[in-house]
Structures are given as structure tokens and as C-alpha cells.
């Protein structure tokens, strides 16, 4: 029998090497991080990806422009609708058509509902990662109500696939407006609870303040987007910069924070939830009557060229880059997923922190592994 020897545990430099994941409770799936530790302090982090790589880009090269959208629900599965919308918008850009106003409004409302539900799940998981189990269940109470709206209108809870190039797949359900208003009331009532149980808690503040600092320059250089970048003071909200769907019709603020630490990222998302509620409130009573879908040809063919569309998912900027050679399926399709770039900044944020900090950082970047691996 081989006995325990020091070399199994430490590098010649005296660093303790451990593999966090791919099966680890706080890596949110199958992320694998290799850590070089000095005691509890993290000296170096190296992400290893690909455990859930399904090659959606290659698959889409063989699917028609109507069909490839469904697969994107499986990328960022917490914001499936927004992924679908991004693809539909890109194809519409290529075809030179626009969705009717009704479809645009409904798309925006459902996008914001998706953002709310995604942020709620993130809130619960952040609590869970930091050791507080109970917030997770409170978050799921509201999320469940949103999921029911999705189920009633789109037909599925998570992988909606409600978008088609040119509009919506079917019209909204007659109960849609009533239910959305009910959910908004519920959510607004329970925001206080979120603050009481987690935001103000001294342990939570200590765990997140001045932890995982990301400077503005690093955020831009690493291509970090979404709430993670906005917490570092980078203005990058695609909804403001390049409005799509009905975002040019509504008043909302881009939430910016200059803290750059986990607490700032947390607060940005908490405020974003309130902004989402206000966006939905502005739109829900004004959904225009009319068609929900623009008539398109049976077989869609994009003209030769390149089309790029970006949307703001709960995690950041999702870019869909379609290269068409004029055939009925994309010649090359590239998803610029927000999680992939956000993850690349993890080593900078985690350096010098403790293992517990690494968990807090991963929670506040809001990683979704299938979104990173695609």
C-alpha cells in the first residue's frame, strides 16, 4: 500500500492543489475549477470547461431557420425565452422584416418576466451558496408564480420556444394580463422580505463586501457584461444602448454601481428586479391589438451576408452572429454567450480571496454552465 506522501497534496512551491468540481455543490452544474491554495487563500484559479458542451453551433448549421431556435432554449436555460428572442430577431434582421407591435410588446413583457424569474433563482442560490438555505424557498415561491404564467401562455415552464421568426408562435392566453398583474403584486409585497432576510444581514454583508473586486478596466477588457459589469461601473445595458423589441417605448434606468465587489453585484441585481417590475407595469396595460405574427414564407432563406444581433439576458450580452450563404440553413452561427466572457474574469476576481469568497464570487457572477459551454 502506498502511504500518504506530501507530494500528493502540495506543489513544489508549497501550494495545495484541489479540484473544485465538476461535481461540487456550488459550481451550479458541471464547472470544474482547479485551485492553487495557500492554506485557505486562493492563489490561482483555472476554469476547465466543456463538461456539458453539446455543440449547438454545429447542430444549427444543419437546421432550418425556423428550427434552430429551439436548441437555444438549452443554452441559458434560466433565460430560454431571451435566447429564443435573440435568434428570432437575428433572422428577422436578415429577412428585413419586423414583428408586429403586439408581438414586440409581448416579447418585452415575457423577457422581463424571464429576467425576474432568473434573478429570483439567482437570489435564492446566492443565499444557498453562502449557507443560508431558507431564502431559496422564498425565491421559488415567486418564481413559481411566474413559471405558471409561462406555462399558461407559452406551454412550457423553462424551455418555452415561444418565438418564431416574425412574431409569436401563438397569441397570448386570455388570462395573461390578469395573471401578470397578480404576480407583480405578489413580488412587490415580498421584496421587503428579501431585504430583511439576506440584504441587511450582517453575516451576508461581511461575506460579500470587499470580496471579489473587479475594476472597470478589467471588466471591459475581459468582455464582462450584464449586472456583473454594471456593478463595476461599466455602462453596458443593451436594452439602453441598442433597444430592441419594445424597450424604446418604456422608461427605465440602467442600474450602475461603482463598488465592483460581490455586494455591488448583488445590489445591482436586486435593483434590476425592481426595474423589471416597473417595465412590465408600463407595458402590461398597453399591449396593442392586432396580429401577433408577420406572415413569412414557408421556407425561410436569409440573403447572403452576415447578421449580428445582441440582446440583454439576465447574465449579460448575448450576441447571435449568423453567416448566411443564401441557403435554407445558417452557414455558420456563433453565440457570444455572456457567461463565457464573465467566467474568464473569475481568476482575476478570485485571486487572493478565501475559498468561501470564491463561492460568493461564483454566486454573484451568476454562472449558468450550459450557457458557457453551449
Amino acid at each position, binding site marked *: 500500500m502506498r502511504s500518504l506522501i506530501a507530494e500528493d497534496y502540495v506543489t513544489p512551491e508549497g501550494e495545495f492543489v484541489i479540484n473544485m468540481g465538476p461535481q461540487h*455543490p456550488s459550481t451550479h452544474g458541471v464547472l470544474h475549477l482547479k485551485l492553487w491554495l495557500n492554506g485557505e487563500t486562493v492563489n490561482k484559479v483555472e476554469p476547465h470547461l466543456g463538461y456539458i458542451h453539446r455543440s449547438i453551433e454545429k447542430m444549427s448549421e444543419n437546421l432550418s431557420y425556423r428550427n434552430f431556435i429551439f436548441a437555444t432554449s438549452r443554452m441559458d436555460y434560466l433565460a430560454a425565452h431571451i435566447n429564443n428572442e435573440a435568434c428570432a430577431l437575428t433572422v428577422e434582421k436578415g429577412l428585413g422584416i419586423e414583428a408586429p407591435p403586439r408581438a414586440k410588446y409581448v416579447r418585452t413583457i415575457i423577457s422581463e418576466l424571464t429576467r425576474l424569474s432568473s434573478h429570483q433563482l439567482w437570489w435564492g442560490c446566492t443565499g444557498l*451558496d453562502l449557507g443560508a*438555505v*431558507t431564502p431559496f424557498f422564498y425565491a421559488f415561491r415567486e418564481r413559481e408564480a411566474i413559471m405558471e404564467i409561462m406555462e399558461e401562455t407559452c406551454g412550457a415552464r423553462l424551455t418555452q420556444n415561444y418565438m418564431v421568426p416574425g412574431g409569436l408562435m401563438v397569441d397570448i392566453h386570455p388570462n395573461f394580463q390578469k395573471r401578470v398583474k397578480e404576480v407583480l403584486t405578489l413580488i412587490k409585497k415580498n421584496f421587503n422580505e428579501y431585504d430583511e432576510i439576506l440584504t441587511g444581514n450582517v453575516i451576508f454583508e*461581511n*461575506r460579500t463586501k470587499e470580496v471579489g473586486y473587479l475594476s472597470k478596466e478589467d471588466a471591459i477588457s475581459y468582455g464582462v457584461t450584464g449586472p456583473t459589469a454594471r456593478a463595476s461601473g461599466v455602462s453596458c445595458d443593451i436594452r439602453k444602448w441598442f433597444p430592441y423589441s419594445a424597450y424604446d417605448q418604456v422608461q427605465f434606468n440602467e442600474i450602475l454601481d461603482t463598488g465592483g465587489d460581490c455586494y455591488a453585484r448583488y445590489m445591482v441585481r436586486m435593483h434590476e428586479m425592481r426595474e423589471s417590475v416597473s417595465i412590465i407595469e408600463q407595458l402590461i396595460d398597453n399591449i396593442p391589438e392586432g396580429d401577433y405574427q408577420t406572415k413569412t414564407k414557408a421556407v425561410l432563406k436569409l440573403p447572403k451576408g452576415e447578421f449580428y444581433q445582441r440582446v440583454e439576458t439576465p447574465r449579460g450580452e448575448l450576441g447571435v452572429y449568423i453567416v448566411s450563404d443564401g441557403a435554407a440553413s445558417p452557414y455558420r452561427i456563433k453565440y457570444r454567450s455572456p457567461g463565457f466572457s464573465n467566467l474568464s474574469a473569475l481568476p482575476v476576481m478570485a485571486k487572493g480571496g478565501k*475559498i*468561501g469568497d470564491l463561492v460568493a464570487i461564483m454566486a454573484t457572477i451568476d454562472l449558468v454552465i450550459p450557457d458557457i459551454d453551449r
Partner: protein
Amino acid sequence: MNIPLLYSLSGLARTIHIWLAGLISNEMLLLTTEMVIMGISLIAFLVLLCFFLGYMERRVAAFMEIRLGPNRVGPKGTLQIVADTVKLLLKEGLTPDLSDKFLFNLAPLIVVITSMLVIAPIAFAKDFQLWDINIGVLYVSSVSSIAVIGILMAGWASNNKYSLLGAMRSGAQIVSYELSVGLSLISIVILSGSLSLSDIVYSQSNGWWIFKGHIPIIISFVIFVVASTAEINRAPFDMAEADQELTGGFNTEYAGMKFAMFLLSEYINLFVVSAIAATIFLGGWMPFHIGGWESFNHIMDYIPSFFWFMGKTFFIIFIIMWFRWTFPRLRVDQLLSLEWKYLLPISMVNTILITVMAIMGWHF
């Protein structure tokens, strides 16, 4: 001292002793037999208690998390924990390759045995105590610190880096929180003038220390509850396990019955610290009396002392569970700074205050 008349279990104990003495004439043999009986009944009691605590924890957690909790196995889910035990018994007890097999198997035993040993000087009811040792407080605080050896052993022997980290954390944690626990215990020793737990209980016959000792005792009670939560490795101080960071810490590699041992010791520890807190701060088995209300006090006396003791203990257990299901976990350095920067200085000043109070006779 005016000792209230209470229902007591001591009569039962005496009856058994007399009956056994009639059967066995050899004194040595009699003592051994009685010890074996005591041991078995204690273990049986503790296992049943752990079943109940496990069920209670699940239900408390579930209600706080707006869900139902176990309600399938047995009436209201009470047999769920039995089902879990059966599952753990049937599981294969894995021993990882390249681990130190002797220490790996020894560690759960050490952890469980030490936590059971601490039970000895606790008075469950009036005059009902396994061992009325005259240095009870000292015994409790010294024996309970042996458990850290078991945890370090488990972490090191597992040949797992997560386990090792967890064990190291646990070592630092228990060693430092021992100080605050000790100081809080000492504050009562100063007031009651005795190290024996039964004497401490009797010293509260005219009022519990938490009421008699003004604010300093309330502070030391709070510090005791917080520090002992840390000492028994429960959330929010469960650094040694830390699911989300260390995937289970020192017990990552344990499965089946060996894991169940750790679970058992966790619940016994929970019971023990709550029982000690109840004994020294809340009057142990002493009923609740209000000066002047004679008829009220008389009614209180009719409640058996065992229930008083258990009621107080479970009150503290509930509070510790409440902590666990509300708070996030501290980080390892914050855990130590909480102890060294806040709890320890406060308890030191507090001890001085209490000493002055005891000398001047300012307490009731």
C-alpha cells in the same frame, strides 16, 4: 435551602438498586451490572433522542421554509428518520483507498463516545444524575474538547483534500470558541460558588440565574449559546462541513454507518450544549417560580422536574435550529475574528463585572 417538593425519578432509580441488591450479593458485580444497565439505557435514550431531534430539525426547517417536511413514513412522518437509519445501515461503508484505515474507522467512534461522555454529570431530573462529580463544569468543558481530535483524525485519515481543509478549520474553530464557552461557564461558577452541576442547580432554587444575575448573565448566556453553536459545528458556524465550499468537509468520505455516527454525535452535542445551558442558566430541572405568587408556584411544582429540564433544553435547541435555518455561513477568518474581537473581550469584561457583582452581593 427551601427545596420544592417535586416528582422525581430518583425513587425509580432507588427501587431498581434495591431490587438488584437483593439478587446480587457481590458488591463489585452489583456495581458492574448497574453500570451496564445505565450504559445501555443511556445509549438507547440518546438514540431515541437523536431520532426525535432529527425529526424536529426537519420539521422546523420545513416550516421556516414554507414547506411541509417529512409526512409520508409513519404518522405525520415521524418514522422518516427510522427509514433513513435503515438506509444508512444498509449502505456500504466505504473506506477510501490510500486512507489511514485504522484512524479512519476510529474517528467516528471517538467523536460519538466523547459526545456521550459529556452527558454523565447532567441532572435530568431532581436527584437523577449519572455521576454527581464535584467538578462537573470542568469535566464538561474538558471532555467536550476531545471531540476535535476525532474530527481532525477523520479529516486527515480520509486522504481527501477537502476533508483535510475541513478538519483544519474545525481545529482552529473549536480551540478558539472553547475560551468563550469556558468564560461563560465560569461566570456562573463565580456566582454559585461551586463547580458541581447539581449544586449549581440547587443554587437556583430561589430563581434562575438568568433572572437573578441581571444583564451580565444575560450577556454571558447569549455568548454561551453562540459560542457553543460554533463549538458543535452547526450552521452558521459549520465551517468544518461547509457543504457549498468543502462538499461536506471532514465527513466527505464517510458513508453508511460511519456517517451515521457523525450525525448521531452532532445531535447528541446539540442536546448536550442545550442541556448545559439549561442547567446553568435556566435552572435545570427547577420549576419556574415567581416570588409572592404562592398558588402559581404550587401549580408549577406539580409539573415533573424531568419535563422542566427537557422543556428548557428543547427551547434552546429550537433557538439553535432557528439560527441554522436563517443565517448564511460565516467565512473562516470572520469566524475567528468574531471570537477574538467580539466574544472573547466581551466575556472577559463580563466575567470581571460578575465577579464584582458576586463579591458585593448585588445579585438576588
